[in-house]
């Protein structure tokens, strides 16, 4: 299985990309560990997670095609 991860704001700079695909991740928590391994600096930032455009703090089970976004505090206006 494969999921799509979007990095927004300062996190796109931390990851060096706005989008990255991950394979064989079971859940949001599992994905966070993988991302942390790839980009340890991300641990210094606060961010919220959305799964398929729904903001969630739950450790949801992920399936193929899911879109997960990592979003630092909003700064519009």
């Amino acid at each position, binding site marked *: 299985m494969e999921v799509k991860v*979007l990095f*927004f*704001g*300062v996190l*796109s*700079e931390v990851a060096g990309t706005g989008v990255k695909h991950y394979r064989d991740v079971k859940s949001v928590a599992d994905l966070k560990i993988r991302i942390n391994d790839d980009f340890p600096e991300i641990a210094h930032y606060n961010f919220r997670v*959305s799964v398929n*455009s729904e*903001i969630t703090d739950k450790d949801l089970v992920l399936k193929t095609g899911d879109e997960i*976004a990592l*979003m*630092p505090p*909003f*700064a*519009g*206006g």
Partner: protein
Amino acid sequence: MEIKYLIEGPVSQKLILKLIEKAGSKTDSGGHSIFLGQVRADEIKGKKVKAIEYSAYEELVNAEAEKIKTIILSEFNDVKSIDIIHSTGVVRAGEISLLVFISAGHRYHAMQASSKAVELIKENLPVWKKEIFEDDSHVWK
């Protein structure tokens, strides 16, 4: 006129005028409140901001902007219409990056609803900004 929530670059005077023209057809409205958010040339540690580069999660912006409209319409039943437009990409200091246009039966409701909508936008719209300085260095906000 179909207006999306996000536009590339600054909110132009032309677009603002178009909205004012459109508002003229709403003869049930007694007042329009127009909020324009402008990029400020802040000075940070001796460096001046020349522009802001905005990025957004479009799908979620659309969903959140719809929610904001629903909240405003349920709290202010005198409000007739709401337009929200936010920039993405580069907007230079002095240019407009956010427009909130609210029409209501009476001025008080238009102004109250506008204030509430702007607060909700600041809080809930998934938009990020990178302040770009005159020396081309930048900082994320």
